[in-house]
C-alpha cells in the first residue's frame, strides 16, 4: 500500500507537468511546425488581400472626387456620457449609431470612430449631428451641431469632437473640417 501511496504522490505532483514536460514525438513536432508555417503564410496573404480589398471597396464605392467621411472623437468626456450620434446630411439621415461600452472606452483612449463614409456632389451641403447621452448629474442631454460644408473635388473629412468645457462644467461639441 505504501508503494501505491508513493505512486499516487508522484502522479499528483506531476499533474501540472504532464502536458508541458512530456517529450513530444518528433513526427508530431514536425507536423505542427509545417502546419504553423502554412497558417502563418495564409494569414499574411489574407491580411494583404484584405488590405487590397479594403482599398478597392473604397475606391469603388466612395471615389475621392465625391468622398466625405464623418468621424466622432472624444477628449476626456467627463461632463457627457455619450449614448448615440445621429447624422443628417441635407436633412436626410445617413447615420444613427448607438455606442457600446467597449466603443466608448476606445473613444476615451483616443480612438476615432468613422461613423459615416459617403458620397456628396460638389457644392454646399448642410451636415447636422445630434449627440444623445447623459450630462452632469445623470440628466438626459441632447445637443446638435450644424456645419455647412463646401464640397469640392477632393475627399473631405469632418471631425465631430466631444470635449469638456471646464470653465462652464459643460460638454462642448466642436466641428472641424479636415481636407
Amino acid at each position, binding site marked *: 500500500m505504501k508503494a501505491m501511496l508513493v505512486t499516487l504522490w508522484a502522479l499528483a505532483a506531476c499533474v501540472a507537468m504532464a502536458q508541458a514536460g512530456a517529450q513530444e514525438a518528433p513526427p508530431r513536432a514536425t507536423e505542427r511546425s509545417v502546419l504553423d508555417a502554412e497558417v502563418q503564410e495564409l494569414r499574411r496573404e489574407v491580411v494583404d*488581400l484584405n488590405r487590397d480589398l479594403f482599398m478597392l471597396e473604397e*475606391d469603388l464605392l466612395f471615389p475621392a472626387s465625391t468622398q466625405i467621411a464623418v468621424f466622432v472623437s472624444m477628449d476626456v468626456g467627463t461632463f457627457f456620457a455619450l449614448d448615440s450620434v445621429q447624422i443628417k446630411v441635407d436633412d436626410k439621415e445617413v447615420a444613427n449609431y448607438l455606442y457600446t461600452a467597449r466603443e466608448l472606452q476606445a473613444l476615451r483612449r483616443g480612438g*476615432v470612430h468613422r461613423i459615416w463614409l459617403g458620397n456628396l456632389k460638389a457644392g454646399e451641403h448642410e451636415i447636422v449631428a445630434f449627440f444623445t447621452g447623459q450630462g452632469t448629474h445623470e440628466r438626459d442631454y441632447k445637443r446638435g451641431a450644424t456645419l455647412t460644408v463646401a464640397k469640392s473635388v477632393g475627399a473631405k473629412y469632418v471631425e465631430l469632437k466631444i470635449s469638456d468645457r471646464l470653465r462652464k462644467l459643460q460638454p462642448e461639441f466642436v466641428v472641424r473640417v479636415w481636407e
Partner: protein
Amino acid sequence: MRPTLILAALILCAPPAPAEEAVPGGLPAVKIQDLHYGDVLFHFYQHDHFSALVRLAGYREQGRLDAHARDAELLRGGLYLSLGQHREAREIFERLLADLSTPPQVRDQAWFYLGKVLYASGLYEASERALRSVSGTLPAGLDSERRLLLAQGLMYRDQFDAAIAELDGWQGAPEWTAYGQFNLGVALVRAGREERGLQLLDAVGSLVTENPELTALRDKANVAIGYASLQSGRPAAARLALNRVQLAGSQSSKALLGAGWADAAEGGYQSALVPWLELHGRAVQDGAVQESYLAVPYAYAELGAIGEAVQYYEQAIASYDAERLRIDESIGAIRAGRLLQAALAAEGDGRQGWFGQLAAVPDSPESRYLYHLMAGHEFQEGLKSYRSLEFMSRNLSSWSDSLGAFSDMVETRQQAFATRLPAAEARLATVDVGEINARRDRLRARLEAAVAERDVTALATEQERGWLDLLDGVDAELVAHAGDAAYDDAREKARLARGVLLWRLHAAWKVRTWQANRAMRELDAAVYDARTRATASSRARQGAPERNAALGVRVTAVSPRVGSLAVRVQAAKAAQGRFLADIAIGELQAQRQRLDEYSVQARYAIATIYDRAGSAGAAP
C-alpha cells in the same frame, strides 16, 4: 502579454512554452493628427486586431498616416505580433531600429517588441540582447513585462541564478510584482534554493486580492508550495498552503487531493477523508478526482474499516470502467469531427473568462473533455490556429460575395455611362464657357474705361438711359430750328433737364461704381465656377471609362486570389483539425491507460484485503 498567460505556462514543474498574446497595450496617449490613425486605434482599443491591421495597412498605402508614420509602424509590428506573424513583426521592428532618425522613445519600444518576437520564436539569447538594448524610456507596464520576459528567457536556458538576479528585489508596476515574485520563487526552487523560493511563493500565496487573475495566481502559488512541501516531507506546511486555495477555483481539486495527502502523511486518515470525499462528488474526468477514488478506500483501510474500503474500491473500479466507456465515446465523437465544432461553439467572444466558462460546457461526448484538453499548451495553440483559419474562411467567403456585387457595379456603371453620355454631351454643347469668359472680359474693359474717364452715363439705369436718348432727340430737333426764337423756351427746358439728369448721375456715381465692381467680382466667381465645372465634367467624361475599366481590372485580378486562398485555407483547416483530433485522442488514450492502471491497482488492493482477511481467518 497578459500576465495570466505567462503564468499559465509557468507551472512549477516544467519550463513554460511561450505565450503569444502581445500588442502594444501600453501604447502611450496619442494626440491624433490624422483622423484615419484614430480610426485604426478605435478598432485596436476594442481588441479587433485584424480590422486594425487591415485598416492600418490600407491607410498607410493611401498615404493617410504620414503624421503618425513611426507610431503607425510600431503599432503595425505589434499587431502582426499579436496575430502570431513573427517574421513580419520582426522585419518592421528591425527596420525601425535601422532608421537612425527614429526617436529614442520609439526605438525603445521597437527593441522591446523585437525582444518579444524573438522570445516568442524561442530565440532567447537574441531576445535577451534586444530586451537589454532598451535605454530606459519604456512606460512602467512595458518595463515590468520586459523584466519578466528577461527572467523567463533565462529560466528557459536553465540560467536560474541569472533569472534570480534579474527579479530579486525588483519592484515593478503593482500588478506585475506578484507575477515577478511567483516567477522568482519558481526559479529559486528549481535552482535548489527551496527555502527562499518557498518564502516568495508564500508571499504570493498570502495575497489579499479581489482581482480574479491574481486570485488564480495565489491558488497556483499555494498548490506549488503544497506539493513542494509534501515532497520535502513537511505536511503541516503543505496543509497550511493548500487550505488557502479557493474551493471553487481551477486549482481546487489538486489542492483537495494534496490536503488529504498532507493529513495522511501525519497519520490523520480520518481528516484526510474530508477533502478526498469532497472530491468524490466532482466530475470524474479530473485527474485529482480519479486519484481520490483510490485514496478514499486507502484511508478506510488504514483506519481498519475494511468493509468500507472494499466498497469504495469496487465503486472506484465501476467509476473507472464507466469513465473508460465515456472516453471511448468521446474518442468516437472526436474522430467524427465533433470536438472542434464544440470547441468553436463554446468559445463565446474568445476573450475574458472563456477558459473559466469551459468548465461548464455540456456533458456531451464531444465537449466533455474540452476543459482538460485546453489545459494543454499544444492543444490551445493548435485551436488558436484552427480558429484563425475558421475566421479566414468566413472572411474570404464574405469577400467572395462582395466581389460578385463589385463586378455587377462596375458593369452597371459602364452601361449607365454609355446611356447617359449623349444627352449630357448635347446639354454641355449648348454652353460655351470660352464665349462667356470673353463676354466677361469685354464687360470688365468697359467698366474700367468708364471709371478711368468718369463716364457717368455708362452707369446710367435703363430709365436714365431712355431720358438721355430722349434729350438727345430733342437736342437734334432744336438744332434743326437753330435761330428760331419760338424754340428758345424749349431750348432752355432741355438744357435744364439734361443738367438735372447729369447732376443725378454724378451724385450716384460713387455708389454705382462700388456696386458695379462688386457685381464684377461675383461674375468672376460665377465664371470661375462654370469653368471649373466644365473642366471637371470634361475630365469626368474622358476619365470615367478609364477609371471604371481600371476598377474592373482590379476586381477581376483579385477574384482568383480570393478563390485560391479559400481553397488553401480549407485544406489547412482540415489538416489542422486532424492534427488537433490526434492530440485529443492521444491525450484521451493516455487518460484511458491511466484509468486502466488505477483499475488494476484497485483490484490488486481488493485482492490484498481479501488475502489478508483470508490469512487472518485461517490463522489459528
